[in-house]
Each structure stands twice: as structure tokens, then as C-alpha cells.
């Protein structure tokens, strides 16, 4: 990453350039705030956590070696903060599966009204917040900002194949939640 604007930005921040850090915040606040706001129900708390993420970035910049992309590193900080915020949802088992008995047995040809109305958006947001944090971060990061699978894998310290699998499992869990608890 040497010689790139990102590298220069990091260097300027390390040298105590306040304008550079402000630039960094401007550049990444969309990503950080969007993920926080999607994962935390209270807007004020989401903002506080997003600010906290940047404080950690500021504290950690002297130790940032530049081996990962800056966005990946920031994304990892966001994931860690969310895991601390929701310790009950902090982890997910690689073997997590669903008990299909939870799924209502619908009759073939049943009406799909539940998935077609405008309320689905709100229900979807609520269901996402019920997912384990790694799943939330995956879904929010992947869909909100179009982060690449490689970035997600690096940020979450997972092989790329596992990221894809987890993303599918997260969406599967969403589908089950929308069918059961958020119906």
C-alpha cells in the first residue's frame, strides 16, 4: 500500500496532522455509522459507538502496520465493538444449524403477502439485530457498502469460503426469523 493516498493519510495522521484525521473520519464515517446504525436499535447509541470506533482508530493508528487495508482494519474494530456491545450475540458456531421444526409448515401455494409488504423492511432490520454479531457484521458490511468477500474475510479473520457460507447461513437465519418471530 506504500505510496497510495491511504498510506499517506495514515502517515499524516501518525504525525499528528489533525486535518488528516478529520479527512479519515470523513472518508470512513459512512461505513462505520451505517454498520452501527443497522446493528444497534437506538440511534444515539449507534452514534456513540461509531464515534468510539474512531477513537480506537485514533489510538491504534501508531500501531497500524498497513498489512491490511485501512477499511479492513476499521471494519475489524467495528466488529469488535459490536461484539462487546452484544456479548450475548458475540459468537456464532461454525456448525450452527437450524431446527427446521421452528419453521411453520406452510401449505403449498400459501400467500406470500408477509414477504411483499412495506413492513418487511422494518421487520428485516429487527431480525438482523437478532443475528449473532459476526452475522450482523457480515450482512450489514456486505450489503450496505458492498465490501468485497476478501475484505470481509480479512476483517473477520475467516477463510473466504467460510465468509460465503456464513453469509448464506445469516440470510437463512433471517428467513427463519421472519417466518417465525417477526412474522
Amino acid at each position, binding site marked *: 500500500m506504500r505510496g497510495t493516498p491511504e498510506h499517506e493519510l495514515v502517515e499524516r495522521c501518525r504525525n499528528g496532522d489533525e486535518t488528516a484525521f478529520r479527512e479519515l473520519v470523513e472518508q470512513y464515517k*459512512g461505513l462505520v455509522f451505517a454498520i452501527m446504525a443497522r446493528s444497534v436499535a437506538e440511534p444515539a447509541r449507534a452514534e456513540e459507538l461509531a464515534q468510539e470506533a474512531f*477513537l480506537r482508530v485514533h489510538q491504534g493508528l501508531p500501531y497500524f502496520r498497513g498489512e491490511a487495508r485501512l477499511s479492513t482494519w476499521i471494519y475489524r474494530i467495528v466488529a469488535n465493538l459490536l461484539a462487546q456491545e452484544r456479548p450475548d450475540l458475540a459468537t456464532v458456531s461454525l456448525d450452527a444449524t437450524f431446527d427446521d421444526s421452528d419453521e411453520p409448515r406452510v401449505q*403449498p401455494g400459501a400467500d*406470500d403477502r408477509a414477504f411483499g409488504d412495506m413492513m418487511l423492511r422494518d421487520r*428485516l432490520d429487527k431480525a438482523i439485530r437478532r443475528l449473532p454479531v459476526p452475522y450482523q457484521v457480515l450482512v450489514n458490511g456486505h450489503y*450496505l457498502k458492498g465490501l468485497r468477500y476478501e475484505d470481509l474475510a480479512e476483517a473477520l479473520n475467516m477463510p473466504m469460503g467460510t465468509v460465503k457460507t456464513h453469509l448464506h447461513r445469516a440470510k437463512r437465519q433471517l*428467513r427463519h426469523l421472519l417466518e417465525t418471530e417477526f412474522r
Partner: protein
Amino acid sequence: MRCEELEPIIEGLADGTADPGAEARAHLAGCALCTRRGSQARAIHELLVRREAPAPPPGFTAGVMARVQRQRWRAERAVDLGFNLAVAAGVLLIVAGGVGLAWSLGLLRIQANLAVLLEAGARLGGRVAPQAQTIGVAGLLLTMALGLWWWAEADSSF
């Protein structure tokens, strides 16, 4: 193919990252439950794609910068406190040394008498003169420390 076998790959089929084989396609064509699951998965995928990112509030960056400044100020205060304590301890040591020296010379027992004081001053000067170099270096170090303190206090920018 059974519904249970198809269910784990429904999301992959819905977002286009999994390729349904002929067997899965045939099953989907004839299974209302799997078709429904597929349409639900597609609806979720499309909604996720269309979702707009929540934008940070207008004062977000200013808020972050204010918190960074507060954090920096707290850290500086801790360093300042340590430095001030060290300086105070140094000054106390010097004063204690001066008092000790005066005590050893018997100055503290002398009544206010100019002649005696002058004589004592001369005696003190005579004793201190051989240590002038050490005292000079100590004074220089103290001055440098105070200068550094002043510089650190003045440089409050980011």
C-alpha cells in the same frame, strides 16, 4: 432430491452465488415449499441490496474530533500531573538541602545580625564554591526541564 437437501443452498440460489444442478432445478419446478422458500430468500436478498445506508448525523465528524481532543487533553493532564509532581519533589529536595546546609552551619540559631549574617554568608560561599560546577549543572538541568515543560504546555495543537 428432497426439500431438506435443497434448503441449505436456497440462499445461494437466490443471490446467484450457487449454481442449481439439473436435479435441484427439477425439484424446484415441482415443489411448492421450496419454491416459496426460494422466493422468500430472493425477497430478502433484494431488500438487502436495495436498503439505503443510514447517513451519519451532520455533526458527526465534529463530535469525533471533540472526543479525540478530550482524550488527548486527559492524557496530557496525566503527563502534566506527573511532571508537576516531579518538579515539586525536586524543589522540595533543594529547599530541604538548603535548610539542612543552613542547619549544619548553625545559621538557623543566629539572631538577625547583619555582621554575623555576612560572616555566615562568606563562610557558606567558601564552602559552596568548590561545588559551583555541580550546582551550575543542576541549575541548568532544572532550567531545561522547566523550559521543556513550558514548550509542552504551549504545544497544545493536535
